[in-house]
């Protein structure tokens, strides 16, 4: 996904003189050709994340459309107050694009894990959040968010599904188990494991790469009594959204995702997916328990 982001951003910088890119060393080498062509609009500040957001705010105040990129924890968590004040409070916006996700570099340890990024941005108003599940989804999302004027976050990962599902982020039914069936909503790269998990179960599976704004209308159209959320960041991040959307209906909700506990384990991203119960076997256990409470 990072390559797709680099290629599309390089093209956008050439196409639109309003586009700017702000870096803090991460991916600077990949953007070196773009920086040579647009030295005034491709700014690598060195390892300075607070300044990265401050500069983005200043660029936006002059009418530019900044794309701001770094590793997820450094982009969102380290510079959170700058996101809140240098962008939102100034009534300007930028497109933030992260790599690393929850545990792409699991062996790097806690400093490079960012399961809370979507939750943290969710404390702010009006952000569009995209969590693509395939590199082919990235160019369209990036183009659309850069062309729009609002604040947006693209959370890129090395984890991916087999096939892309392009579109605007409305819920896409990938597997239809019929009216009234339990609905599983898979966000981004969790889709393939979710599909495998419920292959033998009468569960409708819908996909989105856009948890914010969540497709409320689509959810209300598809949801029966049981709703299952599978998110590749903190478990429960979208619980409040789903609960509010279905407040007028009796329903049960199972929210799966990354646990809050610091595991203090290395290994691979696939190991962490398994440890957090987001592989097919883990999801199957959770979903089966949820749908068969009497048997537990």
């Amino acid at each position, binding site marked *: 996904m990072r390559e797709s982001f680099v290629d599309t951003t390089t093209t956008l910088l050439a196409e639109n003189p309003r586009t700017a890119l702000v870096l803090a060393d991460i991916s600077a080498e990949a953007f070196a050709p773009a920086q040579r062509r647009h030295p005034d609009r491709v700014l690598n500040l060195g390892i300075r994340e607070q300044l990265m957001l401050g500069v983005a705010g*200043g660029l936006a105040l002059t009418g530019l459309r900044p794309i701001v990129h770094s590793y997820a924890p450094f982009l969102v968590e380290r510079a959170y*107050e700058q996101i809140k004040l240098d962008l939102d409070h100034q009534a300007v916006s930028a497109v933030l694009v992260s790599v690393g996700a929850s545990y792409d570099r699991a062996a790097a340890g806690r400093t490079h894990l960012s399961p809370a990024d979507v939750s943290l941005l969710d404390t702010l108003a009006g952000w569009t959040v995209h969590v693509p599940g395939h590199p082919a989804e990235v160019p369209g999302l990036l183009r659309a968010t850069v062309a729009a004027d609002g604040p947006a976050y693209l959370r890129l990962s090395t984890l991916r599904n087999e096939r892309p599902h392009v579109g605007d982020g409305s819920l896409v039914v990938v597997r239809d188990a019929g009216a009234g069936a339990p609905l599983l909503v898979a966000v981004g790269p969790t889709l393939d494991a979710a599909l495998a998990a419920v292959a033998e179960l009468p569960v409708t599976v819908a996909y989105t790469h856009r948890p914010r704004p969540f497709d409320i209308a689509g959810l209300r159209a598809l949801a029966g009594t049981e709703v299952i959320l599978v998110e590749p960041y903190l478990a429960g991040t979208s619980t409040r959204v789903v609960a509010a959307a279905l407040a007028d209906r009796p329903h049960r909700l199972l929210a799966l995702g990354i646990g809050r506990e610091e595991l203090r384990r290395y290994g691979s991203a696939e190991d962490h997916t398994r440890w957090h119960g987001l592989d097919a076997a883990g999801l199957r256990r959770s979903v089966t328990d949820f749908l068969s409470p009497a048997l537990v």
Partner: protein
Amino acid sequence: MTTLATTTARIAEAAAPLDGRLPVAPLLERVRAGRKFGPNVYSTLDVLWVLYDRVLRVTPTTADDPDRDRFLLSKGHAVAGYYAVLAAKGFVPPDWLDDQGGPESRLGDHPDRTLVPGVEIGSGSLGHGLGLAVGTALGLRAQGRLEPRVYVLLGDAELDEGSNHEAIAYAGATGVPNLTAIVVDNSSATHGWAGGLASRFTVNGWTAVTVDGRDHAALYTALTGHHGHRPHVVVAVVENGEQS
């Protein structure tokens, strides 16, 4: 001991424009409304006045002109004098000063750019203005706007915030020529700045001038003393102007 009367007189004297009228002092009193102001208000007033009266190429009619000069108040708590100067220069109606901070007021204890005409940034949390100023300066240049200059005002205690040092090092290393920082030094940094404030900038490649922060002629010379391809800093030294 400084009495209220002598302090007010000092403000009036400091705020006197060249033509001899005293527009700011009574406006500041309307903001004050009997409250006690901290030293930040008085220590900042002179530089604000010199900027708006003689340096900044911006007026109420050009407040949205992309080629205007920008003034960013980073130490957002020094707001009373800022509002008074904005009122004196016609950016905001003087009537707004009378209920500053009230439930219907657009003038908070820290300024909000979306609520106050002429205010370039919302500030209050220290350490945000310089980064925004660097970005503004770079954004103007990236669009070929080489005339406007970006001024940002900070305090010596505000420089405690590490975010400033990210901006100082980067702007100096890359040479942001259309940026002027003003640091009002009223000796309020808890641990001081051994070796002087200006050295933090000059060691990173800025040009720097240290002046008496109440001397309007010296301030004007310093604020227009930028040259070449480097960012410029004016350290305006003031004694603690607090009423006692």
